[in-house]
């Protein structure tokens, strides 16, 4: 029968256990992933393989070859999603707190292509919530983000667009995006993007964000569907303002809401 071993098609005899497969193919493997879940050796010896199963055998500390690396990076993903995500193009308007965190989550999930647009450079006040480092201060955010994504998953295509988005260029920049995340700080820019993208591509999903500042209740951040193609993430109320700052946890929570919804839309899990 056919199974997938380290994401490559392999043959296994009926009745073979996961433990037997490990002993035959990679006895040194101490990380055994079965259909996206880590198995203990004792469990592996009792687990009889079925056709279509996906197994990853990894030796801790061993750096796989470039050919195997791509397949192993997403071994913990739910089986079957990685192939679908590889074909997905997601646009991200803004590479700040929302955009950088969402981009990293999507890249680690194995999304095939990200189009990230931002005009700004990394500066010290960004580092409390954005996925950049001190050594990247002064770099264009889109280039710093591309560098960071490459370090985490070099197989994601990142189109780093150095541009200040406006109503004239936004639809063109994201013309190839299946789904667009609005990740701006400025509220006027959020509305500009909604009008520019949705009027041009009314049947492509747009995921807005509103209300993620301060240290308010984490659980007040929700994902709401405003229309068949427009969603908004946040508590809708807590905006950045004098005396109300932006903090890593809630910005990250909102960014991951956006990223998770984008995955759900890409995988057609949203009705």
């Amino acid at each position: 029968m056919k199974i997938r071993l380290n994401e490559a098609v392999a043959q296994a005899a009926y009745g073979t256990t996961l433990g037997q497969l490990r002993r035959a193919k990679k006895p040194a493997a101490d990380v055994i992933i079965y259909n996206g879940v880590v198995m203990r050796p004792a469990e592996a010896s009792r687990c009889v393989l079925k056709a279509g199963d996906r197994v990853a055998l990894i030796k801790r500390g061993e750096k796989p070859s470039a050919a195997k690396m791509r397949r192993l990076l997403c071994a913990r993903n739910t089986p079957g999603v990685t192939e679908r995500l590889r074909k997905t193009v997601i646009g991200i308007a803004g590479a700040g707190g929302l955009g950088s965190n969402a981009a990293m989550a999507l890249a680690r999930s194995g999304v095939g292509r990200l189009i990230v647009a931002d005009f700004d450079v990394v500066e010290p006040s960004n580092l409390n919530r954005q996925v950049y480092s001190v050594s990247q201060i002064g770099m264009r955010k889109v280039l710093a983000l591309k560098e960071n994504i490459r370090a985490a998953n070099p197989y994601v295509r990142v189109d780093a667009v150095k541009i200040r988005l406006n109503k004239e260029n936004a639809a063109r920049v994201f013309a190839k995006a299946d789904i667009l995340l609005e990740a701006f700080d400025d509220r006027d820019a959020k509305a500009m993007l909604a009008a520019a993208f949705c009027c041009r591509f009314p049947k492509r999903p747009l995921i807005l964000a509103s209300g993620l500042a301060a240290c308010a209740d984490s659980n007040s951040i929700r994902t709401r569907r405003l229309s068949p193609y427009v969603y908004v993430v946040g508590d809708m109320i807590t905006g950045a303002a004098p005396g109300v700052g932006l903090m890593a946890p809630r910005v990250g929570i909102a960014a991951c809401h956006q990223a998770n919804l984008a995955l759900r839309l890409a995988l057609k899990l949203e009705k």
Partner: protein
Amino acid sequence: MPKIHVLVSANLKERLGHARFSVEGKTALGVLEAMAGHHEYGSSFREEVYTPGKPAKPYCIFMLNGHVLDAKTLGKVSVRDGDLLHIMAPVGGG
């Protein structure tokens, strides 16, 4: 005159006192003008969303029956009885 439903985002609800409104108007802009002139919430509406004779606030997103509208063309968008106009004013931060 068509009567439509208007739904506003949570932060606008805090200012206007209600989340849902029933408003008459021939166009989307006409609906906003009617709301701006309302004796109870008109003043807050003018501050937060639209003052007649001026462009709508640049942070407002208008959706008619789920379709995002270009704020500059609201006067050309006819409305019908029972339509739903959603007004969302995102708050800043990202």
